[in-house]
């Protein structure tokens, strides 16, 4: 774990869920406590939602399709959020594109893909399996249709951030939690707000900086999770309409929303919507920053305007 003190803010980072988890607090004395809390939530989310862990709740539920299976409150919450996201995006967000992801080669953790190469080519199919999922809240059961396999991916990270923050209650200091660049804040922010850099990848230079006093930011697009198979570039942003990696004019899309799940879903959908993304984000009442591959930037919904030249790009 690495710890940093910057102005009045102390932060620490550690690797988890194929990403880096960052915790920042406005009272350095609270850092260890909050980091411990977040670590426990990371472990809980991983045991519940991971598609890579053979002992995860997700893998257990998938082993008996077509029958109601008991599920934890966290799993039911994740599944309901994912289905709500699918409904709100007319299916462009789809938690059931796991087969398509694996067909594109993403059949193991991203660390293993980077070390060993992607999985073999397989037949793919469009998404839409979420329409047949049943959630019984009263009996806390979930029924997955045969042939439907789930991938919570980015929404799982968003849920982790929201879950970690809300289970802190009302912290006496400001807290920021980031899971691989999807972040949210709670409590009193540092003076002026949390200073958040916007970048394509975690190690790339910041292209812009905004101050966040409340809510969440999430960035989706083409960054680290890309790989090459037979000379062709693949990535993890599957278009459910085709079952193949999507095509978009945007390199990355960053969205600000009231919570991290909404920001993460909106960023992904807006990226897939290509040229229609900015108008969609504005219609949802959110703020967004769209960075084209050539470097031009479009901002909508109250996102601070930027100069035409992107610094550090």
């Amino acid at each position, binding site marked *: 774990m690495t710890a940093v003190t910057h102005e009045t803010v102390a932060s620490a980072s550690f690797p988890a869920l194929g990403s880096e988890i960052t915790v*920042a607090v406005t009272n350095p004395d609270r850092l260890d406590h909050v980091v411990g809390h977040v670590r426990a939530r990371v472990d809980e989310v991983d045991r519940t939602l991971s598609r890579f862990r053979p002992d995860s709740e997700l893998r257990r539920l998938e082993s008996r399709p077509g029958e109601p299976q008991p599920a934890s409150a966290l799993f039911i919450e994740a599944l309901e959020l994912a*289905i709500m996201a699918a409904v709100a995006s007319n299916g462009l967000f789809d938690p059931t594109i796991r087969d398509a992801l694996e067909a594109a080669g993403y059949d193991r953790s991203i660390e293993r893909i980077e070390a060993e190469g992607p999985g073999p080519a397989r037949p793919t199919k469009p998404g839409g399996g979420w329409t047949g999922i049943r959630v019984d809240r*009263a009996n806390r059961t979930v029924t997955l249709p045969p042939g439907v396999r789930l991938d919570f991916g980015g929404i799982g990270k968003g849920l982790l951030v929201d879950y970690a923050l809300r289970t802190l209650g009302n912290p006496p200091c400001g807290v920021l939690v980031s899971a691989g*660049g999807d972040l949210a804040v709670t409590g009193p922010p540092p003076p002026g707000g949390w200073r958040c850099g916007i970048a394509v990848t975690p190690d*790339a*230079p910041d292209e812009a900086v905004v101050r966040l006093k*409340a809510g969440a930011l999430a960035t989706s697009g083409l*960054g680290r999770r890309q790989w090459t198979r037979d000379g062709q570039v693949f990535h993890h942003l599957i278009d459910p309409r085709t079952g193949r990696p999507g095509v978009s004019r945007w390199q990355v899309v960053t969205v600000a929303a009231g*919570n991290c799940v909404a920001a993460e879903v909106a960023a992904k959908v807006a990226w897939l919507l290509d040229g229609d993304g900015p108008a969609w984000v504005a219609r949802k009442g959110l703020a967004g920053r769209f960075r084209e591959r050539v470097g031009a930037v479009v901002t909508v919904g109250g996102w601070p305007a930027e100069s035409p030249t992107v610094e550090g790009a």
Partner: protein
Amino acid sequence: MRNYEPLRHVQGNAIDPESGPRSGYAQRLRLARQLRAIRWGVLLVGTAATVAFSTLAMHGTSQADSGQATSAPPAQLVASDMPSQSLFTDGLNGFSLSPDSLRVGGQIITQPHARSSTS
């Protein structure tokens, strides 16, 4: 507003299975009254269900935001039951964003509190 498929099922069962269908104007009138009453009943039940679902959805959202445990309402949900806008509802007012600069005092700041990026 959601469609209530059970309306059609109730209409299909409107004939009393024990006494069977009767002939004549009075029978048709009675049947029409029964159908009307059933339609009103279905409408009332549907309205009550809509209000109950909306209340539960808002209750769950507010509880989630406040950190309380979400109670399990007695409902079986499928995708068509999910409200399409609720995921983004609190996105309307739930964030506060203001501009900042990459440069402070002529220096490029490379150490923000956090960074939003792909991962």
